[in-house]
């Protein structure tokens, strides 16, 4: 007797959820799409929030930005819970490796004491700026509309906490708990830090989620991270002999470069929606970038002296180039 083995291919009746088929066509959907699109609660919201009876619980009109469809956004990194956690876990492992290497070889002792102090003076107060970034992104996630817009903001908020924590560990390694105390002291009382602290605290009370996105993620992060971490820490300080610090801030530089792709895509999609949106974003950018430039000058000046002005000018023109690519005239 002979037995023939045959395979039968069974076409699935549905390749994806109906709402995804309507949006992306009749094909299998990715986990990112399933975990992001059309999840936002849009109707039958029942009660208005008691603290703000003028608005709905989830209300797109909280922002001056008008989108026909708030699900038009797309995170190019395609982060949903699982892909986000896996990506960050990998980076966390790499960062732990860098900390372990620096600690076990005592590389931080190779940094000259005066330079180490300069590193601490610049980086320790920024823990508090990162905490502001955390608060702001969580607020966007809470009050923004549409999961593809708000979901990455929640992740970005968590990442800001990670930045603050890595800075704390760097401070503990280089200067013990005293370094953290001194950093907080500088943040609350140091003359040079007050404009930045004022800026961060002013962003904490912005209630338009998209304006907050522009102020925090585009402007403050877009100027602070390239200037402080890419140019000063990885450039100037590393050349002067503080290269081990670059190993300890590696997550921060990698994360900031990676998140720029997402931030640019959000701006590009919102500005591409209408000329009115592009004009509003440009107006917010002009206002906040002028303040951020003057707020960042004293800390950067304290670190690298008179070249700070030129450096910040360069960083600003790079940021403007990013916005120009996203079709926002600056």
């Amino acid at each position: 007797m002979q037995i023939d083995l045959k395979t039968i291919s069974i076409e699935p009746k549905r390749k994806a959820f109906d709402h995804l088929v309507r949006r992306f066509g009749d094909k299998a959907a990715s986990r990112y799409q399933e975990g992001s699109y059309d999840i936002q609660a849009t109707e039958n919201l029942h009660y208005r929030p008691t603290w703000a009876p003028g608005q709905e619980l989830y209300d797109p009109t909280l922002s001056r930005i008008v989108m026909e469809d708030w699900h038009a956004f797309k995170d190019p990194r395609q982060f949903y819970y699982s892909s986000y956690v896996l990506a960050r876990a990998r980076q966390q492992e790499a960062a732990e490796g860098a900390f372990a290497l620096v600690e076990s070889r005592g590389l931080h002792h190779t940094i000259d004491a005066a330079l180490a102090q300069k590193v601490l003076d610049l980086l320790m107060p920024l823990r508090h700026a990162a905490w502001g970034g955390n608060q702001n992104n969580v607020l966007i996630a809470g009050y923004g509309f549409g999961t593809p817009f708000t979901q990455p903001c929640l992740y970005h908020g968590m990442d800001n906490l990670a930045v603050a924590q890595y800075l704390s560990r760097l401070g503990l390694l280089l200067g013990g708990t005293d370094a953290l105390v001194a950093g907080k002291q500088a943040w609350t009382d140091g003359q040079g830090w007050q404009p930045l602290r004022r800026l961060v605290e002013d962003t904490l009370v912005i209630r338009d989620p998209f304006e907050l996105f522009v102020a925090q993620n585009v402007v403050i992060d877009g100027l602070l991270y390239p200037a402080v971490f890419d140019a000063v820490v990885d450039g100037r300080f590393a050349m002067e002999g503080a290269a081990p610090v670059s190993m300890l801030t590696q997550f921060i530089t990698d994360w900031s470069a990676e998140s720029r792709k997402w931030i640019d895509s959000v701006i590009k999609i919102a500005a591409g929606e209408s000329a009115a949106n592009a004009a509003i974003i440009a107006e917010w950018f002009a206002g906040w970038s002028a303040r951020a430039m003057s707020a960042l000058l004293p800390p950067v000046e304290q670190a690298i002296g008179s070249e700070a002005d030129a450096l910040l000018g360069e960083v600003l023109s790079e940021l403007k180039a990013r916005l120009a690519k996203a079709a926002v005239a600056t």
Partner: protein
Amino acid sequence: MSNVFIAFQANEETRPIVEAILADNPAAQVEDHPAMVKIAAPNSLTINRATVEDLIGRNFDLQELHINLITLSGHVDEDDDTLTLSWNS
């Protein structure tokens, strides 16, 4: 003219690779089998790292596709950016 082909396990990881191949190789034909997807193209077929990266939104190492690779036919020409199968080299 003879076909080259490549076959992958059909799963979440290979879907963007298959999409990238179909986008970059207009002549490619896809055949769905149970748990396997086979793509055939006349003469040559190219997988571009950049196209896959656009679809998955992260850096991609072409070597990663070997995890889900079932079989292929054709001469392989591989570098960091592309993997090409062809009969002409």
